[in-house]
């Protein structure tokens, strides 16, 4: 409820601001204009959606080749501003059409704006609200490098996010994506195998024949004559 009220207040504020701008222009002696916004009541997240605005003068005659801007007001923490969704020009019927892809789920308040020129005053349209349906979240199922046969092609599709189940099977399941990354695994295996080989040679050093007290194992005479530090 509170959210709806907030959106209504926000939309009204936007409309009033735009109306005040157009009123100021009208006072300067230009022809008053009127902008009507038409948006679908709902759309799907990420789907291409047409929005239209019709620009007419005071007598209802369409204004062609005028630049119309579709905006939405967004705020995040302390920042707020009009985000331009699309720019379009009106046709002979005074209709500007733009195609937008909405990437935010929930309801979105959209406004159209005409900034005017030396002949026509600026105009702002009443705001329209689009409900963006999205029960799922955009999720790149097969991200990363696509290697034929090894993994599936990258695809961007809505995939429902689910909570991981508990237990050891779940743990193994979470490790499974790593198995598809066998090039990484193979490289790591090679490197760590070589590490292990080098480390194993330390044991060979430790258990190699070494000089000892009289009567025990001694290194060859050559070594005694040419110790390692003298070579």
């Amino acid at each position: 409820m509170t959210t709806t009220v907030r959106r209504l207040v926000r939309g009204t504020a936007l409309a009033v601001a735009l109306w005040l701008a157009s009123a100021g222009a009208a006072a300067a002696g230009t022809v008053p204009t009127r902008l009507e916004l038409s948006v679908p009541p709902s759309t799907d997240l990420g789907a291409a959606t047409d929005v239209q605005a019709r620009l007419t003068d005071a007598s209802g005659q369409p204004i062609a080749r005028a630049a119309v801007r579709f905006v939405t007001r967004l705020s995040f923490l302390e920042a707020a501003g009009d985000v331009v969704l699309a720019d379009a020009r009106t046709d002979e019927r005074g209709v500007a059409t733009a195609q937008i892809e909405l990437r935010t789920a929930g309801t979105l308040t959209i406004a159209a704006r005409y900034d005017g020129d030396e002949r026509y005053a600026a105009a702002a349209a009443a705001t329209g609200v689009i409900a963006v349906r999205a029960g799922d979240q955009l999720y790149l199922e097969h991200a990363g490098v696509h290697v034929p046969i090894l993994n599936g092609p990258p695809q961007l599709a809505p995939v429902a996010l689910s909570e991981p189940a508990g237990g050891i099977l779940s743990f193994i399941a979470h490790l499974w994506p790593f198995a598809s990354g066998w090039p990484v695994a193979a490289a790591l295996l090679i490197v760590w195998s070589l590490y292990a080989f080098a480390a194993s040679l330390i044991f060979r050093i430790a258990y190699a024949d070494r000089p000892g007290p009289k009567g025990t194992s001694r290194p060859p005479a050559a070594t005694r004559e040419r110790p390692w530090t003298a070579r």
Partner: protein
Amino acid sequence: MALAEAPRGAGDHVDPVTTVSPPEWRARLERRGLAPLAGTGWRYYAWIGLLLAIIAWALYAYSQQLEDGLIVTGMRDRISWGVYIASFVFFIGISHAGTLLSAILRATKARWQLSITRMAEFITVVALMVGALFPLIDMGRVDRALNLVFYGRWQSPLVWDILAITTYLAGSSLYLYLPLIPDFALARDRLGPAASKLKRGFFTMVAVGYHGTPAQRAALERAMTVMMIIIIPVAVSVHTVVSWIFAMTLRVSMNSTVFGPFFVAGAIYSGIAAIIVLMAVLRKVLHLEEYITARQFKNLGYLLGAFTLIMLYFNLQEYAVNGYKMEAGIPFEFEELMVGPFASLFWFYIVGGIMVPGLIILFPRTRTISGIVVAAILALAAMWIERYLIVVAGLRIPLMAYDPRDYLPSWVELSILAGAFALFALLISVFAKLFPVISVWEVVEHRGPEPPDEAPVAARMPVGAAAGAGAE
């Protein structure tokens, strides 16, 4: 301190090491190389105390961050990486020098570097240890690092990063340890009563019974060869993967296909600079003037000089290509870098950090030890700044219709940064106490005394005699 003059220490058998009386320079080298291991002066403890105090302060700052969250930092939703990630890249970068340089120079049998390989390898291991902490600190909720283990996807550069860094750290540690074995044996046999029983016990354990028998030598050389070969691609892969964390992020300033080699070049550049600075410090503190001469500084200086050209080339490549296309966001980036809020840092990086070091090394008059050290310090500062610019200036470019926000590191971040540098210095100091900083056996076997043509240069060194009092 007095090292045992009798070459037999704790051993109760006749060691082949002891069967030939070493020449005077070799005995001096052994004394000098092992001196820091034998005794410790008050200045060392004072230094360690200072570092521990800085680290304690950083821990306090971190406790504030843990308690209140990342709000105590300067990072916010729009610039969500700052000093921490810049420092992470910086430390991983300087870690390159060590092992990579050491392996390349060993592989090419460049013998001049034998007296400095150990220091280079120290830098690698220590810088990796310190650098790897930063992503955890940056996370805020450090316990969530486990999510990467349980829920990590192999497609994620973050997962690659963890795999690469742990692999590199393990390999570098092994590569550091292997050439240390004969020196541990030397310490075991030479230190005698000059070292504590505990220390001798430690050296006996880590020397793994090495006595330089043919079988042991063969095993050691084989292991070193394997590690020398494998560590080079691993080192290159690490910084390439670090660069991918940025290059695979959808940020206009990071859209680059040459970030991998650019980062690797930058890493080697800063790594060489780090080795030069550490070399200068340890040379002075441990009185290693006889073994680390102008020759090592000049040769590393030449390498540093070559990399100034490579860095200039990569910068030209980056800015020329992006500037030609001028995609959305790039004009903003160029403006903030070149004439905007980051201009002083950016031009210091280009001019002070790349061009000036190159010029210092180019002219023989300035290509002295002190000149090369100054060039290295400039290069190090510039490379930290470069990472800062990539991270902060890159994230400052607005993604939506909002004003760009500024980022200023808070006292918490600066304290933790100071703590990281203190930890780096602490680990190096502790390493220098536990391990010989010069690979004594390699210098003895493969290099010998400095060539006579270097003697006049060495004689010009400001600090004193090669032999003498032990290090504090």
